[in-house]
């Protein structure tokens, strides 16, 4: 039995309709439909080359920065088409934050790493408070409160990643995109980030790309399984196989491919 939840479009933070992305003449991912409900964690899983990161980067228009990248289809954020002329990608990225695969703190002090985003977005309030609140929100305050002037690069990998999460939440986005945020971290740091995600989902919608199926099943409410098939040009083209509540994807998926992937038979 599959429980169908009736939702209206105002319950969705992001909706993707028939989204395809190509780089140059290569189609990377084709016809993705994905509705991301607010205040949930949605995991995108699948084997390498299935386009899950590519899809993620559509949601804050990071693909705009890649020469030759083209996104087709319709993506809405709070009902607004993000490719419409009224939408400035710079403004969109303020509302749809991102945490990357490898921690990428700026070569600035820990304080400035947080303050930078606030400053460029014209934050007029008390900066010290914002920095503290963000660092607390990312569960790293106690570790760095005595060395805010030190370089962000002096931290360990797990701390750097939580600093990057703090940086992302400092500008108070509505959605946080996480592109394999734990792939460069050790298991303890990974656990801390996962715990953090559970806290963050009270306030934010989180979309996480992960290679780690346990991570997807532990942390997410919904899971989208992507797969890739070989194309005639010898490349790989990704597509969405199945999208549902995480427990359904992991326990009774409707597709054979999903079943095989989540049980570890390939990927």
């Amino acid at each position, binding site marked *: 039995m599959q429980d169908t939840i009736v939702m209206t479009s105002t319950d969705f933070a992001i909706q993707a309709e028939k989204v395809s992305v190509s780089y140059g003449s290569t189609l990377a991912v084709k016809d993705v439909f994905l509705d991301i409900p607010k205040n949930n964690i949605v995991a995108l899983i699948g084997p390498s080359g299935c386009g899950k990161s590519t899809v993620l980067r559509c949601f*804050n228009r*990071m693909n705009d*920065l890649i*020469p030759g990248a083209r996104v087709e289809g319709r993506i809405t954020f709070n009902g607004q088409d993000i490719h419409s002329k009224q939408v400035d990608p*710079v*403004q969109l*990225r*303020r509302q749809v*934050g*991102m945490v*990357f695969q*490898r921690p*990428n*703190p*700026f*070569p*600035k002090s820990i304080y400035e790493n947080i303050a*930078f*985003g606030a400053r*460029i*977005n014209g934050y007029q309030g008390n900066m010290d408070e914002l920095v503290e609140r963000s660092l607390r929100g990312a569960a790293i305050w106690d570790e760095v409160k005595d060395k805010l002037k030190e370089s962000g*690069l002096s931290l360990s990998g797990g701390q750097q990643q939580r600093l*990057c999460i703090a*940086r*992302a939440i400092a*500008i108070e986005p509505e959605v946080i995109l996480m592109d394999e945020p734990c792939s460069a971290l050790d298991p303890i740091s990974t656990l801390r980030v996962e715990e953090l995600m559970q806290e963050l989902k009270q306030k934010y919608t989180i979309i996480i790309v992960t290679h780690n199926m346990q991570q997807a099943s532990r942390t997410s409410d919904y899971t989208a399984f992507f797969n890739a098939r070989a194309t005639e040009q010898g490349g790989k083209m990704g597509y969405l196989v199945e999208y549902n509540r995480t427990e359904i994807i992991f326990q009774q998926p409707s597709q054979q491919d999903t079943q095989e992937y989540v049980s570890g038979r390939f990927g």
Partner: protein
Amino acid sequence: MTAEISRDTAPDLWKPNRDRSRLIEGIVKVICGAFAAVSIITTLGIVATLFFETLSFFGEVPFWQFLTDPKWTPLFASKQFGIFVLVSATVMISFISIAVAMPLGLLSAVCLSEYATPRVRKFLKPVLEILAGVPTVVYGYFALLTVTPFLQIFLPGLKGFNSLSAGIVLGVMITPMVASLSEDAIYAVPQRLRDGAYALGATKRETVTNVVLPAALSGIVSSLILAVSRAIGETMIVTLAAGANPTLGLNPFVPVMTMTASIVQVSKGDVPHGTIGYQTLFAVGTTLFVMTLALNIFSFWFVRRFREKYD
């Protein structure tokens, strides 16, 4: 069952000549070592010559006088050896040149690496590097015959030989060096730092000025320092355009004589070997050498101190 690995060829078909390869390796090592030694020996030779000739110069001219004389007249009957007369000209011209090359070079580097499309970049970068291939004597005449008359339209007090146009043209000459080296430094900044800034809602300009340039700072500063030491050592432009009139002071409108120009003057011919005039060559040369060495050491230190390590 034997554990033997089956092979496609019989073992006796494989007869490597180990002795011969060992011999060749040894010979190659010696040849490479010899060629590498040439440059080291040459450098040591230059340093030794400079050192001993400078020592004998200071045997006749007290070091104090070298530092404090208000005039540089080693070829006159009343000899004075104030090195700062030459140093002031060199420093002033280098300063003017870097004031030109820093904005020009840095902005071109930013434009090339961050704003230009790959196609424009592919076209522009070689063009910029051609500038570096123009012979300096051409730059010198350009300064003397084109830039100076042009500047005289606006600055009537400007003499025919002057530091200003020499410095400006020297700046144009070192611009490709600043641009190319800074561009390398900017290019080396990992893309994920830019992505991080864009993902926070930074515009391109904010990303460049707040993230990319600070991250590339050590490379940019070292490119500027290398360019300055190139400017200090540059000879042809300053000899042709700045004149040969040792003047103490920092007035860019009048003829001066730089350290390099004084070396040209002495080594051009008339000064007999072994005289004190001849020995000034080495004293000035050593001063020049010490200045550029100090700059290079500073740049080396700066890069190591401020380089951001990205694994």
